[in-house]
């Protein structure tokens, strides 16, 4: 029988029923719900207990003051009885600087320290674009860091004062025009290069002038011959500048106004200084190259497309160590005789290419995830290819790919330890080997790896948290 029904009034929305929440309820539901779960919970608890029971004494018996591994062991046995084991952190206490700087001369330690602090000052305007509060926090942190570490490292007064003035100036600028801080980010690579390797102050300035020349040629020529040819002409002029005029101009200026830092050779770099230099440079340059490769792979132009595909597939198909050996050995054969291409630079170039190939595929995934309608809407509004890419397509594609991009970055940073294979002093193998070659620390095993591992973890975990923050910040789809 059909029942007729008419609603006389609409129901108001009600809050959902309050579910009971409590530790006991949670445990019963999650840990002890079935006999199998009870068994697994007990087993899990036992495994955790055994792990702690095995490792805890070693941590508790840590020794921080000793001059050799033997002395460490004596102290442990004296404190905890014969046969007891304990960590010997005294080694870290004595050799920490090699893990951080390699053989960088101690009086010059302030230079990598300063470069590291300024790295964050340069990154902040990119990572927290226009966000006054976060910028102020980061720059304030850098200021405190620099005051403390530069004082401890005994930095000369002039650079000490200059860098503090710089950071205070940036703090002030962050309050008024945070966008302008990006200028420092642009200048930072040259500054960092000069701080770390030293030499004449003119070489980074003249090198950066190459970019200014590139831009000037591009701006002057683009109304006359169009965008792409103007960009090509700019690049040609800049390359000529770098290859043929750079050195002459530097020597000339150095003759007039001699000013510079003590030169430090690449073989004195080591430890985390090396890992971070390679990692940060690789990350910075692999992203734009990866984007271009991903776009190239989707291009309609046959040559661009096949070059991109060829590059990506070749680099991805070869182990990184092969590329590193190429960097250290083979590249010399292909370059004109007499060119001495710095080994760190060579390694950076190949690590960058390696990461770029992976990034290209990651970004291609992001591009493929965008609905065709986005391309069509951009076209229909009359945006040209590059504007459509820059304003519509890439912001969305990159946002989709953030987790995978950051994974690639983390992978790249950890892969920097592989430079040990071409004789560079990476923190994990290179420095540890040097430490263990010392008769005092022969046989030390866990401690250096734990120390290096913790630092790697902190840096990689930081990147991972930042990527999650960025994903939340950019979430605008409200799905």
């Amino acid at each position: 029988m059909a029942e007729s029904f008419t609603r006389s009034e609409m129901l108001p929305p009600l809050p959902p029923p309050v579910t009971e929440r409590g530790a006991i309820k949670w445990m019963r539901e999650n840990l002890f719900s079935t006999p199998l779960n009870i068994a697994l919970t007990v087993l899990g608890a036992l495994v955790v207990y055994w792990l702690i029971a095995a490792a805890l004494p070693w941590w508790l018996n840590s020794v921080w003051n000793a001059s050799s591994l033997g002395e460490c062991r004596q102290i442990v046995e004296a404190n905890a009885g014969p046969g007891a084991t304990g960590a010997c952190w005294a080694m870290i206490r004595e050799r920490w600087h090699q893990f951080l700087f390699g053989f960088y001369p101690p009086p010059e330690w302030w230079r990598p320290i300063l470069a590291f602090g300024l790295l964050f000052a340069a990154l902040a305007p990119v990572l927290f674009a226009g966000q006054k509060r976060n910028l102020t926090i980061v720059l304030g942190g850098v200021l405190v860091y620099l005051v403390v570490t530069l004082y401890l490292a005994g930095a000369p007064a002039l650079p000490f004062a200059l860098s503090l003035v710089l950071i205070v100036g940036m703090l002030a600028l962050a309050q008024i025009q945070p966008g302008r801080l990006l200028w420092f980010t642009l200048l930072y690579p040259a500054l960092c290069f000069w701080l770390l390797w030293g030499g004449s102050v003119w070489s980074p300035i003249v090198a950066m002038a190459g970019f200014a020349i590139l831009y000037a040629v591009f701006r002057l020529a683009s109304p006359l011959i169009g965008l792409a040819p103007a960009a090509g002409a700019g690049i040609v002029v800049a390359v000529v500048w770098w290859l043929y005029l750079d050195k002459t101009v530097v020597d000339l200026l150095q003759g007039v106004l001699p000013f510079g830092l003590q030169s430090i050779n690449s073989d004195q770099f080591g430890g985390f200084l090396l890992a971070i230099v390679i990692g940060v440079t690789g990350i910075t340059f692999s992203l734009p190259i990866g984007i271009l490769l991903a776009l190239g792979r989707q291009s309609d132009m046959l040559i661009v497309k096949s070059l991109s595909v060829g590059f990506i597939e070749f680099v991805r198909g070869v182990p990184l160590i092969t590329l590193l050996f190429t960097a250290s050995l083979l590249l010399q054969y292909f370059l004109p005789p007499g060119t001495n291409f710095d080994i760190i630079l060579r390694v950076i170039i190949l690590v960058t290419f390696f990461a770029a190939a992976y990034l290209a595929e990651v970004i291609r995934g992001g591009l493929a995830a965008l609905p065709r309608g986005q391309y069509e809407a951009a076209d229909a509004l009359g945006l040209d290819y590059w504007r459509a890419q820059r304003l519509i397509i890439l912001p969305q594609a990159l946002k989709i790919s953030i987790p995978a991009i950051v994974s690639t970055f983390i992978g790249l940073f950890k892969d920097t330890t592989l430079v040990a294979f071409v004789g560079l002093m990476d923190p994990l193998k290179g420095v540890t080997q040097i430490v263990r070659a010392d008769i005092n620390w022969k046989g030390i095993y866990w401690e250096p790896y734990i120390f290096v591992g913790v630092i790697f973890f902190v840096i990689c975990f930081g990147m991972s948290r930042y990527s999650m923050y960025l994903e939340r910040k950019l979430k605008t789809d409200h799905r």
Partner: protein
Amino acid sequence: MAEAAKMQVSDEVAIQITNMNKWYGQFHVLRDINMTVNRGERIVICGPSGSGKSTLIRCINRLEEHQQGQIIVDGTELTNDLKNIDKVRSEVGMVFQHFNLFPHLTILENLTLAPIWVRKVPKKEAEETAMYFLSKVKIPEQAHKYPGQLSGGQQQRVAIARSLCMKPRIMLFDEPTSALDPEMIKEVLDTMIQLAQEGMTMICVTHEMGFAQAVANRVIFMDQGQIVEQNEPKEFFSNPKSDRTKLFLSQILGH
């Protein structure tokens, strides 16, 4: 009201399509299309799915490439010349079935992006224009939200406003109401009717026959990539000539 609007049709030709053919691979999707649209004319294209009606209007702003024949939009012929394509695209607005708003930008940014980057309009002026058109589609209060926060009907009205911000001389509508709930169709159609009354040259692919009767000067019926019949709406609906048209009309009006 609609009659008054029809008075504004001029003799000036806005779009001229002559002997146009298009293939997808081996498939002959548009066959010998000939069509002239005068300035101020409002044309509704209907037909069964797969008849090539969307492809036809997508050829008009070169989202699809035609292989034979000639398409002249506002005196500019569509060829492989990118400059001509960009010129035509900035004169021709397009509204899509799935809105295609940019989800990473606010409504206001969606509206100002093309005027700022293509027309080089100063930001402030572009924002004023955007707010004007948002008021016109009756959602100025949504300017700072993201597309994902709006209903389908609101998104489609934003999409119409986005096209209008480029001050187009011709508007193309590709099934603008097909992805909407019935309750939202009206608000979008109202916006389109208002636009028609202001004398905009419009080509709409739609199944909204009420809309066709209210504002169209001409209804074009397509099947199998060809124009089967075209006539003014009264005649088209009351007295269709071809059997294929009769069958189609009985199917969409029959329930």
